[in-house]
């Protein structure tokens, strides 16, 4: 890290072309191509759409390989957009967004290829690809205006996906979803503009929406302003995620959407909330975040307990899965606002895991629904006898969801709870009950669907086809891989999380941030010895203010600081 600020470092782009811009525009181009296919030829539209999704996965896989496990943004590319307002097209990826992008690309492909599609494949593929472009664009945005645009644009395809291919109450569900999120964005938007204009005087009077510049400037805002702006952000993202008092759109939207729609709504769009609150909220306004952390932690714990109770009471398989998402999202928020390295890493990991798990869950629910029509528990039961493979795959996904050791859910839940325990003991204690309640509702659901006597139509349920197995296989592979060997992911994630926490620490020295070191859980040495508060250093400021092109050289020493105890005190650090 050296003299480069905790937020200012930008690692080199090792590629000769702006890969992130390509990754954002590829699905968009695919959507346009798909829309141009004649309406009569749905097969061609489907092929074109899938080809775009596959290509996207290819590019993202390349990104995963090329990504260096260091802190800071990589592959940054920048273009001025609305110059007079300091708005730019600026995209970059760091360890936190990398895996969200990867899992999004994968899940979109599965959601487009997997579930059988009735109705216009052309329209479905177009909306899905648009949604993919917007979601991934939001994850990669380094300009807050761009983020907001992407964040809002997601609503349109999501709206049409729910309203066009959903269940009987889809119009209501889609409308409710749109309006809730739109209203939540109102607060986010005004808070965002306030941030930009309150920091403008410190930026020679020029407004800027640049993430890194704003992060540097926001530290100079009065404390109360930081808290209020953070609160505005929190409302917007809490609706999107959703966190408990803002969750009432979720069961309708997730249940009424088609299988593919539910997969991406529950698997990708929720992460916009979880990612946004971390990247924009915590990163830019650490003091506001640490002030309001107790509120968010409490909401998360309430969500965990309340969500569990409501989930247990569901009588419909799809609705049960939908409600269980409330609990998973609450875990994300719990981890993120624990402000310990394990917690934050666990929270991010939980987002990745939830994408895989709940995507697979909704897919399997779709498989069952296709065979049985009904999804009420009262009409299901004993499916295992006629469809053992279906039951086995379903069980594997359910076990991932309940956090069985050896599968992905365990790693993130453990990290979240351990991370919360070291900083907020009692919250963690209450949250731990979710381990038990999760087992109750998931295994009970499994039992009611697959075990017991098989009545009537349940006696002869078609087995999973090879195509269906192939569709869910990538998700299962991810579930197993991350459960057994999460190290590659954690290695890339940890530097960025440390980076973030160092920034929180520099903004609020009172916060005591335990950190991960070399993968093992340990406490860091006191903050003032190892954390440079390079935000305030002139060198850091210079480095952050410099425009960074796609092929710019590496920021000075951007690779350091991945291991807390190994970092010497920065020469210019600590001057606040």
């Amino acid at each position, binding site marked *: 890290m050296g003299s480069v600020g905790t937020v200012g470092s930008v690692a080199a782009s090792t590629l000769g072309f702006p890969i992130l811009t390509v990754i954002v525009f590829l699905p968009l181009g695919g959507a346009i191509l798909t829309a141009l296919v004649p309406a009569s030829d749905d097969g061609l539209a489907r092929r074109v759409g899938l080809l775009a999704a596959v290509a996207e996965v290819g590019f993202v896989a390349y990104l995963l390989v090329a990504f260096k496990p260091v802190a800071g943004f990589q592959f940054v590319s920048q273009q001025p957009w609305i110059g007079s307002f300091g708005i730019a097209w600026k995209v970059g990826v760091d360890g936190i967004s990398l895996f969200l992008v990867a899992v999004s690309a994968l899940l979109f492909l599965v959601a487009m290829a997997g579930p059988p599609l009735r109705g216009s494949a052309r329209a479905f593929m177009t909306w899905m690809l648009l949604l993919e472009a917007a979601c991934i664009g939001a994850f990669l945005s380094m300009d807050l205006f761009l983020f907001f645009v992407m964040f809002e644009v997601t609503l*349109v395809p999501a709206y049409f996906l729910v309203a066009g291919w959903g269940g009987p109450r*889809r119009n209501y569900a889609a409308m409710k979803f749109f309006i809730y999120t739109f209203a939540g964005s109102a607060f986010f938007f005004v808070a965002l503009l306030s941030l930009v204009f309150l920091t403008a005087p410190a930026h020679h009077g020029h407004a800027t929406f640049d993430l890194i510049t704003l992060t540097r400037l926001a530290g100079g805002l009065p404390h109360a302003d930081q808290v209020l702006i953070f609160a505005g952000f929190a409302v917007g993202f809490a609706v999107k995620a959703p966190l408990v008092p803002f969750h009432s759109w979720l069961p309708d939207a997730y249940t009424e959407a088609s299988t593919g729609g539910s997969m991406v709504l529950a698997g990708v769009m929720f992460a916009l909330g979880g990612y946004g609150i971390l990247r924009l909220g915590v990163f830019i306004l650490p003091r506001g975040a640490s002030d309001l952390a107790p509120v968010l932690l409490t909401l998360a714990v309430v969500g965990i307990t309340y969500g569990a109770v409501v989930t247990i009471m569901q009588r419909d398989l799809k609705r049960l899965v939908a409600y269980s998402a409330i609990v998973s999202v609450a875990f994300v928020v719990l981890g993120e606002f624990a402000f310990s390295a394990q917690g934050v890493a666990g929270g991010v990991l939980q987002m990745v895991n939830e994408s895989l798990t709940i995507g697979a869950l909704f897919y399997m629910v779709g498989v069952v629904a296709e065979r049985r029509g009904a999804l009420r528990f009262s009409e299901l039961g004993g499916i295992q006898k006629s469809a053992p493979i279906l039951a086995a795959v379903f069980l594997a996904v359910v076990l991932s969801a309940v956090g069985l050791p050896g599968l992905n859910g365990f790693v993130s839940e453990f990290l979240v709870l351990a991370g919360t325990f070291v900083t907020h003991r009692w919250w963690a204690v209450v949250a731990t009950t979710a381990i038990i309640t999760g087992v109750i509702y998931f295994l009970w659901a499994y039992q009611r669907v697959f075990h017991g006597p098989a009545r009537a139509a349940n006696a002869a349920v078609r087995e999973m086809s090879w195509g269906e197995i192939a569709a869910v296989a990538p998700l299962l592979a991810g579930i197993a891989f991350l459960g057994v060997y999460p190290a590659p992911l954690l290695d890339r994630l940890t530097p960025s999380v440390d980076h973030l926490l160092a920034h929180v620490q520099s903004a609020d020295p009172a916060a005591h941030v335990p950190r991960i070191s070399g993968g093992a859980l340990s406490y860091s040495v006191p903050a003032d010895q190892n954390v440079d508060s390079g935000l305030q250093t002139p060198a850091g400021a210079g480095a952050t203010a410099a425009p960074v092109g796609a092929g710019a050289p590496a920021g000075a020493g951007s690779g350091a600081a991945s291991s807390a105890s190994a970092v010497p005190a920065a020469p210019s650090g600590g001057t606040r």
Partner: protein
Amino acid sequence: MIQSVLFAGVGHLAQSGSGCLGPNGTSITGLCTSDNSLHMPVAYRSILPMLVLFIGALVLLLVSALLSKRSRPGLYPVLSTAVGLAALVASVWEWYDVGNRGVSTIGGQIFYDRFSVFFGVVVSVTVVLASLVSDSYLRREGLDGVEAYALILLAGTGAVLMAEAAGLIMLFLGLEIMSIALYVMAAYHRRRTESGEAGFKYFILGSFSSAIFLYGVALTYGATGSTRFQDIAGYLARNTLVHDGVLLAGMALLIVGLGFKVAAVPFHFWTPDVYQGSPTPFTGYMAALAKAAGFAGLLRTLTGALSSQQANWRPVIWLIAVLTLLIGSVMAIAQRDLKRMMAYSSISQAGYVLVGLQAGSAAGTAGSLFYLFTYAFVIVGTFAVLGLIQGPGEARNDLGAIRGLARRRPGLAMAMLVFLLAQAGVPLTSGFLAKFYVIEASVQRGQYPLAIIAMLAAAIAAFFYLRIALLMYAGEGEAAGPAPALEPAGGGAEAAGEAAGEAFVADGALTAGLQPVPSLDGATATLTWEPPPEERIAIPPAVAATLAICVVFTIAAGVSSPIIDFARHATAMI
């Protein structure tokens, strides 16, 4: 009273002997040289777009008098479009001619600056768009004739004059020229009683508002001794009024008079009836033009002449803006008639421009200008689409008329979707940036509650925009009953429900379709009972071209920055 004010204004003019005054009251040479108001040289270049429009209207009437009636059915729209384009060219020329100067010409009654020229551009563009979309409607309704286009051009003349006005008298003159043309246009459909009613209502209430405006002019003159914006501003800058009751009353009346034209709540009661009754393309023109001109007047008056009184008028505009935003959005939800719904929608949209006005800053003005310019394309396009789907005789304006449009006319539905999303303020359309600019200006002035209310109003408004969008993309009987929903793909954009959805439909159809659901869904479902009209919608080439222009502009202005830079250069007020 009218006459006395007029004479007072003239008297003052003669008295002050103001020929051409620059921004600081200094005489500017080049445009006019004489100080003698009795022999005023006329700087024609400063009123070029207005002259083009006005002379164009006269030429149109002249041509029609020379030709036998109905000999050339397509001639007048072509001429009118050409006049609009000529005015556009004139405006663009003026833009470069005037530069960053601001000079008052023609006896100090016309202000020649980029603000005026900006509205010259907006009005010319609106005239072109309206001429293009009106032709097919008028022919369909058997109303073809020169009068419609002459009225379009005359209304445009008045609108430009309002923006060019350097004083309240000229502002009033422009207001009346525009309004009288618009009254006639509202009543233009002779065989529809609604149209006559609309024209009558608009005329009666509009006359009232004009009278109120005039009273405001009189009181402002009484308080400041002038009707010219520069002199009013100068007077108020030099003097502190101990008893400012007269000025405040005058200001309030001016706000009422102009608020009526822009359909701000609580002066909006005429809007739904007039918008519903007027011939559809004229409604779009009226919405774009009257708002642009009315706000030009408001901006000149409030942020220009009365900028020193910001502490007095900003709270008033704040309240009007909040009422306009919320009542417009909420009332639109309850509407069953598309034109009425769009009327309330346009009220709500005026609220955003008021938010920009309320900021009372250059940024707010730029936001308002951007809003008005981009809104013109959106609203003309919207009403053009409504004009096509309503069928001969404006038979169907109810929500059911637009049902299934995507299946019948996917291109038309896509255009409408873009307009709806733009009005809802979804990113990548001009509507989003427009809202962004005005709200940004509001936040810049620390008006956080207003900004949040404006955004929440957008969320409320999204409801009815999306409902229209949903109806367009809904399939035949999709939500109404189980049978069509279980059919395999009916083709087009509608989906008959995929695996899980189908499963739900099988056992959920009773609750969904046959019983009224007491919810948002129910409202939509009951509307969908009517069978969609199956006649093919013909899209005339001129309308198709206009829609294409509007769509391209709406998206282009939503993703790029030239328009806002254009607007930012036009914010210098006096």
